[in-house]
């Protein structure tokens, strides 16, 4: 029963057997690349996970490039030249994406600095020295306490 369940809930995986390369090393590289290339019609799915026609064509193109002897970097270049940076699930680090990459750490830094300043300021305020009770106050306190 569990096995059946596991079989039926297998994660979406769209690479069809007829697409696969016979060379296991090349096929493994194709999978690695296919996991990081974004399908251009399905917003946020890797081409390996998408059964869109275009995703199928892109997987085939990746394999064709690998069989032709391209390095992984050359395959990525091939795809970026045609579909732009959009096709990379992990955006590249460059001028246009600086805010994307550094925005998070920057906010953390600013918030940390603000907290630090606030903590310093709080510590700098001296606790006012308390004056001893006057004779009148002492008498009222005693009355309240029933002494």
């Amino acid at each position: 029963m569990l096995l059946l369940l596991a079989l039926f809930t297998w994660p979406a995986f769209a690479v069809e057997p007829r697409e696969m390369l016979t060379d296991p090393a090349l096929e493994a590289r194709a999978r690695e690349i296919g996991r990081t290339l974004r399908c251009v019609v399905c917003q946020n799915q890797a081409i390996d996970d998408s059964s869109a026609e275009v995703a199928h064509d892109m997987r085939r193109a990746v394999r064709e490039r690998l069989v032709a002897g391209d390095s992984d970097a050359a395959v990525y270049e091939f795809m970026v030249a045609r579909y732009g940076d959009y096709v990379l699930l992990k955006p590249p680090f460059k001028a246009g994406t600086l805010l994307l990459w550094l925005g998070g750490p920057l906010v953390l830094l600013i918030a940390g600095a603000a907290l630090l300043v606030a903590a310093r300021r709080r510590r700098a305020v001296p606790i006012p020295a308390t004056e001893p009770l006057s004779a009148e106050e002492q008498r009222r306190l005693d009355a309240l306490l029933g002494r």
Partner: protein
Amino acid sequence: MTSNRLLFLLPLATLVVMAGFFGWSLLSGRDPAAIGSAMVGKPAPRLEAPSLRAGEPALDTALLKSGKPVLVNFFASWCTPCLAEHPLLLRLKERDGVAIVGVAWKNKPEEARASLAKLGDPFTRAGFDLDGKLAVDWGLSGVPETYLIDANGIVRLHFRAPIGPRELSQILALVKAGS
């Protein structure tokens, strides 16, 4: 302390900034799903495809180097948005004399032919890309998509949607400048 009072305005200021961004997104027509084009400004890819018409030679990259701007349109008979742009393509051919190369994408040639016979054929030359191999070279994401190749074989426009009146005037402006 006034600085602490100002701090209370921070959530409100955040709200204003966010509302401003959302408002701008709604009103400016920004499309977060648009994937843009990496092809514009680059030399057109190879254009090799079997001819859709009997007795005509296969499509050849030389078609894009005729010294005149050429429109390349990927279409399919099964594609509904293609129907929307079809009259504009016919107009471009008949009224403006623009050379249009059509490529039927993932479309059986006989079905593409039948559809063109019914709707009118706006193409100077037509081919078909049954398995979508040519399309990946063109950075195609689906149909319809249209590219304007200038007289020097450089991609000048790439529309990932059916062309409408706005796209039409962009095409015409460049065709007139380039011929």
